[in-house]
């Protein structure tokens, strides 16, 4: 589906709410379970992000680390991930899916081969945590050529000059990191300050869809509902960890959590 990421934002905008974006790790805690979780929560989602687990995740907090280690322990490989994406897309052909990971996994697989596989399996977008601007220029171009959205990131430390350049080379979605932290820590800044940063980006190019991630939980999500989209990751991974620990079904628990998150922004 071309432009399905743009469509997702359009639908959310029409309903006067931010797009809800989940992040879970593909293969957490097993291949099948992670697909079941994604299928189940996708009815409340606008876009799904799936993490490619890596065993040296230098930008992730404890929750996502745990999810990644679980997935790796259960033997997930890149080819499995592409197959799972294909399966998901067969069930939910219009739901955009973004793969998120570290560059080593792509580098090892081969950039071109990786993008071809993404295209063939129906991946709509890519986030590469440690391939930042301007080092990602060529890779982003390669994505665009293959109708895959390369999602640029902007952090609280990004200068306005750099922001302009990043936005210029960005595709239909930009990811704003809310706070100086790894994934999953509490918001260090006030909501006001986060919204202020968000508005700086939006002012430079209003037509770009800007999503806010890092530190978004049940508690904080409604305060940020003026954004184009909100990403919830660690809170979901934490729920999977908790469910497994309490010997409960992560599929039902995570679905309940995502439903609650959705209710807070409609």
């Amino acid at each position, binding site marked *: 589906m071309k432009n399905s990421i743009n469509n997702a934002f359009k639908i959310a905008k029409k309903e006067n709410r931010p797009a809800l974006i989940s992040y879970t790790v593909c293969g957490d805690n097993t291949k099948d379970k992670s697909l079941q979780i994604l299928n189940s929560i996708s009815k409340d989602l606008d876009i799904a992000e799936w993490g490619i687990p890596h065993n040296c995740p*230098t930008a992730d907090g404890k929750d996502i680390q745990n999810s990644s280690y679980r997935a790796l322990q259960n033997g997930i490989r890149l080819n499995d991930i592409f197959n799972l994406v294909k399966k998901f897309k067969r069930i939910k052909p219009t739901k955009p899916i973004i793969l998120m990971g570290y560059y080593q996994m792509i580098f*090892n697989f081969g950039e071109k081969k990786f993008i071809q596989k993404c295209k063939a399996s129906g991946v709509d977008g890519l986030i590469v945590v*440690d391939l*930042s601007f*301007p080092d990602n220029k060529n890779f982003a171009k390669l994505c665009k050529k293959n109708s895959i959205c390369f999602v640029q990131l902007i*952090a609280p430390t990004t200068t306005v000059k750099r922001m302009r350049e990043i936005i210029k080379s960005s595709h239909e979605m930009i990811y704003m990191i809310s706070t100086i932290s790894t994934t999953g820590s509490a918001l260090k800044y006030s909501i006001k300050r986060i919204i202020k940063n968000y508005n700086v980006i939006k002012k430079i190019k209003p037509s770009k869809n800007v999503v806010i991630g890092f530190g978004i939980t049940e508690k904080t999500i409604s305060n940020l509902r003026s954004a184009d989209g909100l990403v919830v990751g660690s809170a979901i991974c934490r729920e999977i960890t908790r469910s497994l620990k309490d010997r409960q079904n992560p599929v039902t628990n995570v679905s309940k959590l995502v439903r609650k998150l959705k209710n807070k922004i409609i």
Partner: protein
Amino acid sequence: MIKLKKKIPLIDQHDQFGFYGNKFGGNYCAETMRKPIEDLSKLFEKLRKNRKFLKKRNHYFKHYLGGETPFFKLENLSRHLGGAQIWCKDVSAINGDAHKAYHATVNALICKESGKRYIAGDTGAGMFGKNLAMAAKKMNLKCKIFMGTKDISRQAPNVKFMRDAGAEVVPVDSGSKTLVDAVSECMRHYVSNCDNTHLAVGSAIGCNIFLKICAWSTSQISRELKKQLIEEFGEIPKLKLINVIGGGSSALGFWNEFIDYDKKHVELIGVEAKYAAPLSTNAKVAILHGAAQYCLTDKEGQIAETHSLSAGLDYPGSSPLHGLLKDSGRARYTNASDKEALAAFKLITKLEDIRPSLEPAHAWSECIRLAPKLKKNDVLVVNNCGKGYKDKKIYIEQLGYYPK
């Protein structure tokens, strides 16, 4: 084949994106870190040209770290092996017991200049942690050291030192519980605190600026050695410089002044631990801790686990600068097993008065292999880059004794 540039310091042979030979290094980091590392790069480039700062560095090297480390011939070992003459650059004689003292001190000085009050570093063998803790105390900085729980228990004397110096030692229990995870955790800490914390990466690894600072700091070793060689021989004789490689910070310092020499004149030999040997076992290039480098991985690209008795060598990656030296053919790399390192320690300490830690024991092992094949006018110099006391317990477990 990559070609090295003459008369340009090795650390400066990168392009605008931080790549050496279009292949090694780079800045593979989260967007949050980009601005802080750019600021740090600017600060470092300014400071390394600043006379006042250099004077301060030299003052600290001389009066705080104890000045020039000794260079001497090992008569007994040379005679025993019956080939080349063997010399020791005894960097372990420095206050701080290892080459990491230079690197830690410079990082603390840079932190001070940056106006940041917090400094964070990773450590495996504890040598960098201990020296960073000391330097932080000296310069009134708050210090956090990240260390794998396996290393905390096997390098206990250094951990005690860090804590006594007032540093907080943060145990890292994820993954292999060794250096690789300590570095990851330390980088995470930096991503979360880069507004007030200076990151001191413990070896010549990481994003471009971190490996530059490291290799720039340890190069003091080869500046001294060059002078000492000329004093002793009246010229730079035909040499082989043998150094152990973990991340590779001591070797880069030991070799820095000799890079421009022809390899037939000054040969550079790096010795890795056998089961943590990306450079000598034809590992692939991978991205680890912010840089492209030779690194042990599995087929899927996941970072591989390593095994070495030596905590300082138990690391799957290697400095991008060693990738450059390998691919340009300037240095050659080999490895030694735990057993060989222990045997080297046994022989060296029987014949000579030095007590190498497990890390340089690997370099000594290669020296012992090589010396008998060479002639009397061949000069072998080994960088004895760490003191053995921290491994006393391991030596006793493995050999049954620790020499006086």
